[in-house]
């Protein structure tokens, strides 16, 4: 166990049941200042439930959640769609966060390199820009703990790297802790310190390199175990993304 002063969040033997259905079973982990903890797991593994419990908006059935007193939390939800019927600029969207000023908004926009979009309608932002805007909203007021729910969903490879880069930079500069949900271990490997593989219970956990080679991880994600097969798979995926994201990345660069 690391020293408790740097510990922002600790879950001990947390379980969650809905009627007879066990959604989370005996989960323990902690998030410290300056570290990134990534939750990985298939659909229905309980990732979102665990995140809600960590944020304190959902009660546990048993176990304990310790959150350091008075820490501020920045939260980045999955994709946000805002209907055109609401006339809302990017700045006004960010200003919705309680107890902040427009000065804070400008600072956060600068961090994610989107100052030029401040007065544009939030609906006009591209997919990658929208995720950066959401990250900016989470970053306002220098939170102690960043909680990110699939921060790069639907973003092309270039955009993904940019967002992960921003998250890592923020963490290193402010010393905040990061708790992140991700689908793809491959993509978060470089910037994460600890990986938890979740499938109702924690299948395995540790450094990304360790988890990558853990048979439990492959069993959970339904991927072949052989090193070469994994390589192929990732190669395929990268290839696929490139093809898929080609048009998108070109149009993205137009905005940037």
């Amino acid at each position, binding site marked *: 166990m690391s020293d408790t002063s740097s510990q922002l969040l600790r879950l001990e033997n947390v379980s969650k049941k809905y009627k007879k259905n066990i959604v989370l079973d005996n989960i323990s982990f902690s998030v410290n200042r300056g570290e990134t903890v990534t939750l990985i797991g298939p659909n229905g593994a309980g990732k979102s439930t665990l995140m809600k419990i960590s944020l304190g*908006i959902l009660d546990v059935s048993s176990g304990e959640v310790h959150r350091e007193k008075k820490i501020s939390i920045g939260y980045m939800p999955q994709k*946000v769609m805002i209907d055109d019927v*609401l*006339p*809302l*600029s990017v700045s006004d969207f960010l200003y*919705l*966060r*309680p107890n902040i000023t427009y000065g804070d908004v400008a600072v956060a926009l600068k961090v994610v390199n989107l100052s030029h979009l401040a007065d544009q309608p939030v609906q006009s932002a591209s997919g990658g820009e929208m995720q950066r805007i959401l990250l900016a909203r989470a970053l306002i007021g220098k939170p102690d703990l960043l*909680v990110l729910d699939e921060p790069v969903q639907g973003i092309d490879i270039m955009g993904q790297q940019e967002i992960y880069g921003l998250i890592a930079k923020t963490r290193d500069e402010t010393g905040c802790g990061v708790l992140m949900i991700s689908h793809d271990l491959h993509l978060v490997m470089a910037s994460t310190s600890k990986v938890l593989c979740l499938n109702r219970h924690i299948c395995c956990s540790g450094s990304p390199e360790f988890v990558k080679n853990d048979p439990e991880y492959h069993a959970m994600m339904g991927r072949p175990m052989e090193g070469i097969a994994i390589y192929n798979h990732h190669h395929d995926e990268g290839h696929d993304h490139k093809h898929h994201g080609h048009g998108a990345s070109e149009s993205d660069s137009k905005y940037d």
Partner: protein
Amino acid sequence: MIVNMIDTFIINALIGGALVAAIAGPLGCFMVWRKMAYFGDTVAHSALMGVALGIAFDSENPIIMIATCSSVALILLFLQRDKRFSSDTLLGILAHSSLSIGMIFISMMDHFRTDMMYYLVGDILAVSTTDIYTITLVVLLSAISLFFIWRPLLSLTVHEGLAQIEGVKVNLIKIVYMLLIASLVAVALKVIGVLLITALMIIPAAAARTVSNTPLQMIIFSSICGILSVVGGIFSSSQWDVPTGPAIVLSATVLFLCGRFLLRAKA
């Protein structure tokens, strides 16, 4: 003498209508943003039950109406926990059941023969000075409440989950908003009737959208647009002897269409 009486009618109608429209616009903006038009309709239809209760207790106290409308809104919140039925279905059940209950009860009151049309489309020329006091009080209280819940309500309109995690008391704010709608419906009944109240909320808000760049602008323009519709409706109703409620609604529609065409001409 007769001229004076007519003047009082018109002035009361203008003041009452303008006050109702001034708050209907902003509340309507949230209704448009949150895609809750059918919810507004449901609360409005339930007002007819409030009318029936009022007649039964022989009282014109708006509290009865506000309480009835609020109860229906809260029942809806409760029913929404049953995920087997969509909100849409539940609203349909509530809206038409409460409308029917109201109609049956009103028709059963033998000593109270009245034209049902009055409740359905309102009679703004019957707005009395006492009504004006009630409307003023409710509108003022609503405006103050809206001022205080403005930012959290906007935040949960944009993204409920994010708002909740950022510390917005989502359920409390939603209930306050529902109560505001219920209060508005209660005082707007005489002005525009249960069938048309939603129109006074939705159409000015939609008209304001075409000329607004921020939520605050849209709220202000929707108020202005609502007030213009009331004035236009009362004027055309006295000019051509048509029912005032529908005339107000159509004035709003004309403003909406003008906004659309102006915008297209500009582009």
